């Protein structure tokens, strides 16, 4: 609508258009501008490629840390499942007392399974496997205690340690042990790595924001003359800034794709090294790759960074360019 001339039909509103038509044109217009911005990136490949590379490399570090955390958690949770409590019985416990304890434990609703290892059986196993076979023949008494292996129903470390506390109180139990100390340590390390990942990600995101902002700022300065002309013929700031915002979005998108590609190469490269380590531990650990949802998140974050970085630049720079004209 014209400000100076009441009733002067201006712009496309002068042409009667149906709502649907206008809706379609709105999207056609935006898609066209998005493609134009893509074309401009294509025309200035050097600076755009550099920016995309910075984005890709910067985002790779937090993504790698994230995958590391994810895989470590997978390891720790698989071990968590195997939590088992060892009850070492007092040396003078007799057979009836043992049977009594087994019955008691089996009646406990928290206990899934009880396995009794007789001290003679334990000595035989130890003699066979430890390599000290001959040495044991010189010992007269069996120094080993009877052992009961109790598998808790609830295998989480908290529930297991609660059960451990109650089993410690049993009369014939000398010592009860749940080997979760190292599990807790692993959990702590995983959470530490996760927090480091968060901090690194935050810092790198700020860096990416600034890099995109600077790239867009240079693009704006390069097009200063063009922007001046557009202002002279009546373009609003939001009209002028739109292509730059699309450029930011594209930079973010390509940066995200590059991150994904780097990550895939990295995983492929590390796969053999990790296989070597896990073989030593006889574990069937497989490296969990990036899921489709995670790729989606990555692209979303990258695109948002591109968009906001560009917004930062256009807000500051476009309104500063004033038509000098005439």
């Amino acid at each position: 609508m014209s400000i100076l001339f009441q009733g002067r039909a201006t712009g496309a509103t002068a042409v009667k258009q149906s709502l649907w038509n206008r809706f379609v044109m709105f999207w056609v217009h935006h898609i066209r501008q998005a493609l134009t911005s893509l074309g401009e990136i294509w025309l200035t490949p050097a600076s755009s490629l550099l920016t995309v590379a910075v984005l890709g490399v910067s985002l790779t570090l937090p993504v790698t840390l994230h995958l590391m955390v994810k895989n470590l958690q997978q390891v720790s949770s698989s071990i968590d499942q195997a939590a088992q409590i060892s009850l070492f019985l007092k040396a003078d416990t007799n057979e009836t007392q043992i049977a009594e304890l087994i019955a008691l434990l089996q009646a406990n609703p928290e206990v899934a399974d009880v396995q009794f290892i007789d001290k003679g059986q334990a000595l035989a196993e130890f003699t066979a496997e430890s390599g000290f076979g001959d040495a044991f023949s010189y010992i007269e008494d069996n120094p080993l205690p009877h052992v009961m292996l109790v598998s808790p129903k609830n295998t989480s470390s908290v529930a297991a340690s609660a059960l451990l506390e109650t089993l410690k109180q049993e009369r014939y139990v000398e010592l009860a042990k749940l080997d979760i100390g190292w599990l807790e340590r692993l959990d702590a390390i995983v959470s530490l790595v996760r927090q480091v990942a968060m901090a690194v990600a935050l810092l790198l995101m700020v860096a990416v924001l600034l890099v995109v902002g600077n790239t867009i700022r240079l693009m704006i300065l390069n097009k200063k003359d063009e922007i001046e002309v557009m202002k002279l013929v009546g373009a609003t700031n939001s009209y002028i800034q739109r292509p730059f915002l699309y450029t930011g979005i594209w930079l973010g998108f390509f940066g995200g794709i590059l991150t994904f590609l780097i990550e895939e190469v990295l995983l492929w490269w590390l796969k053999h090294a990790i296989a070597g380590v896990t073989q030593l531990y006889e574990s069937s650990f497989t490296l969990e790759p990036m899921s489709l949802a995670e790729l989606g998140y990555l692209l979303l974050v990258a695109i948002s960074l591109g968009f906001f970085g560009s917004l930062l630049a256009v807000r500051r720079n476009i309104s500063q360019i004033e038509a000098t004209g005439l």
Partner: protein
Amino acid sequence: MLRFEQVTKSYSGGFVALDRVSFHLEKGEMAFLTGHSGAGKSTLLKLISLIERPTTGKVFINGVDLSRVNRGQVPYVRRDIGMIFQNHKLLMNHSVFDNVALPLVIEGFSGKDMTKRVHAALDKVGLLDKVRCLPHTLSGGEQQRVGIARAVVNRPPLLLADEPTGNLDPDLSKDIMNVFEAFNQVGVSVLIASHDLSLLARMRYRTLTLKNGRMINDGLTSYGADE
């Protein structure tokens, strides 16, 4: 249509570019604005197109006080004014069509409607055959006519021109002026800043003469007054 009321523009440092200038350009009137360089012609045009704001005094277009127009409304005001520049201000890496279409694209035109208007504007300045050319392949006079086509493509009621014949030979200047006269005849108000005195003498329109920021003459036979 265009009215200046005691308009003064002074820049920081104390330089007074315009000193209490008043005049009134009627609807459908065509006038020249003349004076030596530095006399304040450009400043006067900048006040109309809201590139600058007056220090004191008021500028009205069609009765609307421009001091009431805020920053966000400036682009919309400029859409109502066709502006032509001495150095053309064309987008050099875009075709003639794109240049002329720019004001329409900004206003949201597209498709056939836009093409029709662009072709009509280029036809008026006689450049229909150069639609697909890039501006730097055109001569100075042709570039200036592209600038004119761009200024009139959305049919503004007011046309401002700053030294439109600045670097052109007399024949081309005459062509350009004929184009302006043609627009004036269909009711567009035209204000042309020029120091080309021989051209002014031939054209015989109302002439506003500025000297050191003051309006020293407002009338038909102004040329030569400040010689």
